[in-house]
């Protein structure tokens, strides 16, 4: 059990995540012909949010948002602790359900539709996430992250298609265009602010903070595919994130039925096929 990694995650993820998101905003700005904000802007923004007045549409929203943050930290900490990947995925789902409930609790139209959209997104990525965990199990014989970390070869060798499938839904998880159907960080909104419309001040600060933790968790899973070769893993994480930024700026938002359908088809084509090949030819490879 890697307690140090988990503690490092809990303490450092906001800062590292903040810098990552800051780099994201700068590069995005440059792609759009702007200068872009300072690198630490995301952190400044979150700190500013916590200084604001505590105003909310209903008090329960803050409770659900807190639950979202706590369980997101819990999920990430469990992952970096080296725990069971299936439990990580289930805990991640739990955290997202709290976020969705926070938006529902507001009882306001934009927030409600945002919640429905977010639920569609969670439904879209769930199969692929489960297949990722199953893929790791089939290669290493264990669901534990620590087993994958300790495995002699990078599991990407046996799970190339699975990796591509995971990248497909990563776009969704990072809330990047074309799959930013419930809320978006950019100024091309569809539902005012969708999911987070009724969040303000410290409540919104908690949600943004949780998103930083989630980003680090997702990049951690990308790393996991190349765990045996840390330098290559780092390179892949950087390239993947740059790719996501590029896709974000180059595409327009899709309709939610398309998002759902395409993620599920990706789960079948990349996930199930990869797992099937492993199951039936695993002895040969």
């Amino acid at each position, binding site marked *: *059990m890697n307690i140090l990694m988990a503690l490092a995650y809990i303490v450092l993820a906001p800062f590292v995540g903040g810098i990552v998101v800051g780099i994201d905003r700068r590069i995005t700005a440059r792609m759009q012909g702007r200068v872009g904000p300072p690198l630490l802007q995301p952190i400044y923004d979150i700190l500013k949010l916590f200084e604001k*007045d*505590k*105003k*909310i*549409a*209903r*008090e*329960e929203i*803050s*409770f659900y948002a*807190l639950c979202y943050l706590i*369980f997101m930290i*819990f999920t990430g900490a*469990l992952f970096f602790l080296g*725990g*069971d990947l*299936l*439990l990580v995925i*289930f*805990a991640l*789902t*739990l955290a997202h*359900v709290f976020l*969705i*409930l926070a*938006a*529902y*609790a*507001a*009882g*306001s*139209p*934009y*927030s*409600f*539709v945002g*919640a*429905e959209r977010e*639920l*569609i997104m*969670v*439904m*879209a990525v*769930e*199969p692929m996430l*489960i*297949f990722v965990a*199953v893929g790791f199990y*089939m290669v290493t014989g264990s669901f534990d992250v620590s087993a994958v970390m300790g495995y002699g070869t990078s599991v990407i060798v046996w799970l190339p298609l699975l990796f591509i499938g995971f990248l497909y839904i990563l776009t969704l998880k990072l809330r990047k265009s074309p799959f930013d159907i419930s809320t978006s960080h950019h100024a091309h909104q569809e539902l*005012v602010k969708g999911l987070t*419309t*009724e969040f303000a001040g410290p409540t919104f600060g908690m949600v943004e903070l949780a998103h930083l933790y989630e980003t680090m968790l997702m990049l951690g899973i990308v790393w996991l595919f190349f765990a045996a070769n840390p330098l290559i893993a780092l390179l892949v994480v950087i390239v993947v994130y740059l790719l996501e930024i590029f896709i974000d700026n180059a595409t327009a938002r899709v309709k939610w*039925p398309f998002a759902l*359908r395409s993620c599920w088809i990706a*789960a*079948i084509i990349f996930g*199930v096929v990869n*797992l099937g090949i492993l*199951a039936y030819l695993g002895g040969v490879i």
Partner: protein
Amino acid sequence: MDLTLFLILFPALVALVLMLLPDHPLRDTLIKAAALILIAGSVIFAALTLSAGGLAFSIENAGMVSLLMQVIEILIAVGLLYLSVKYRQHIVTVLVIAQTGLFLYAETLLTGHATGFAFVVDEFSVVMALIIGIIGSLICIYAVGYMKDFHAHHPEVKDNRRGFFALLFIFLGAMFGVVFTNNLMWLFFFWEITTVCSFLLIGYKWDEESQKNAFWALLLNVLGGIGFVAAFFVILGIDPTGSYLFMDTLIAAGPALALLPASLIGFAGLTKSAQMPFSSWLVGAMVAPTPVSALLHSSTMVKAGVYIIVRFAPIFEGTMTGFCFALVGGVTFLMASAVAVTQSNAKRVLAYSTIANLGLIVACAGIGTYEAVWAAVLLIIFHAVAKSLLFLCVGTVEHRIKSRDIEDMGGIIAALPRIGVMMIVGISGMFLAPFGMLISKWATLRAFVDAQHGIILVALLGFGSALTLFFWTKWMGKLIAVTGRSFENYENEISRSEFSSITTIAILTVAACMLFPLVSLYLVEPYVIGIYGHAAGLGQWNVIIMLMMLVLFLMLPLSVYHFRNSHSVVPRYLGGRAMNEKGQFLGSLGREWDIEMSNYYLTEQMQEKGLATKGNLVCIGLIVLIALTLVMGVGA
């Protein structure tokens, strides 16, 4: 042992008394007292049996008992024939004649008296007995208050509560019989009784819709019964003295001998647990009063169907036949979950969810490995608790808001706070970590991954699980979305019997999760070890982490008090329009607008009819495949 027989016969006695008593308030007291006795009896029975390591015994005059059962069977058949002829249900008539006739003929083939235990009670039976005794009795207590309201709301329905409660208790006794007996013919007798109880209870209102659904349920269940009886011909063909009529002997004989009868009985199990293509009866059975839906059609009777398939899991292990059964379960899980997304009628959502979860249990039983059986029993336990809680809550809510539609349940957390919270507990219990069903689903996934050809089932589970997440969360969201219309809290209108039983089951739901390690250690693992020689588990660390999550989950609501006093409440956002104190938006010319928000039902992408048809066709194909594997002998 005496307590075993007490649990079977005492409810029957209570039923008799209930039939004879005239309508009187004393009846309510009698029902509650009997229910409490059953709860106490089941718990004591469980403790005694577990500490003794299980029970196995025969009774004297077993021949007399068999004869008595045959007589009752004939009487039941006559009654059913009378009704089916009177209401021109010709297929039912034919099927009842076929089943009864075949059964009586099979009895004549029994030439000797083989020795065997009439009753065998192991940990699995204890688990089922606890579910029947505790949850079943609590539902009976609930029904006291519910039926009073029911007849107040439906003056056109004839008040036959005497018969209603009698049937509930007969049913409980029969269920105890199903899970305790080791003699397959006696099991069939109790099985039949549950079918008849279900038929009569579904048809309680006896209007046209109820009649139709009651007869349809009867039709499909009797069809399954014919499969059950067919198994007797095979068993007696192997040994006419009837030694393989004893379940433990049959299972010990191994797949070479037992696969065909196990599959035939498994077919009966598929019909009773409403697997595709036999799902429609369960959906139609939702016309019955809610206690019936809670007791028979989610927590108990349908569990009898999966109980029998799980019993034969060691026979199905590693066989193509078993895998086809597993696929029936898996496909049912996926399709039923998809249909549930499109439904807004709360009871139909619960019905389809029940069908889906039963599908998972069947899938585990079909795989038959030790991991799968462990997961199956866990699924049975946690599903029974959470689903019955949900049905009871929906029944109570329905009587208050006069609607079963989820869209009308908006903001119920304000109108009925405690019921609302317990509904959230129930819904969370069905799919969220760290609650029981999640644990069971986790165990199921592990069992699938390790099984031969398990990838197909993993895929079905992955997609189905995403769908269940969707319809449960949107229901939860609807419950907490208070849109500002003023809600008076009318919770004090709810009867004490309803409230107390709902609260108890809610506590049980949470307790079962907290005590999951103990439940697994004392109730489930011994059963699995007894059959397979080793136990399954989730790993010590995982259990600890899940308990941590549960503690967090239960403690975090305390933070609501902190938020309550520190925040100022401001109006919601609608493009800058103003809001009045009632939470309505102020339009132009002084008009005030309520907000109406409804969930996504994905009806453009999925339709109930289309999905049901596809699911039914695939499963019919799978059942044909089962038959083929048996005929060609490639099963083992």
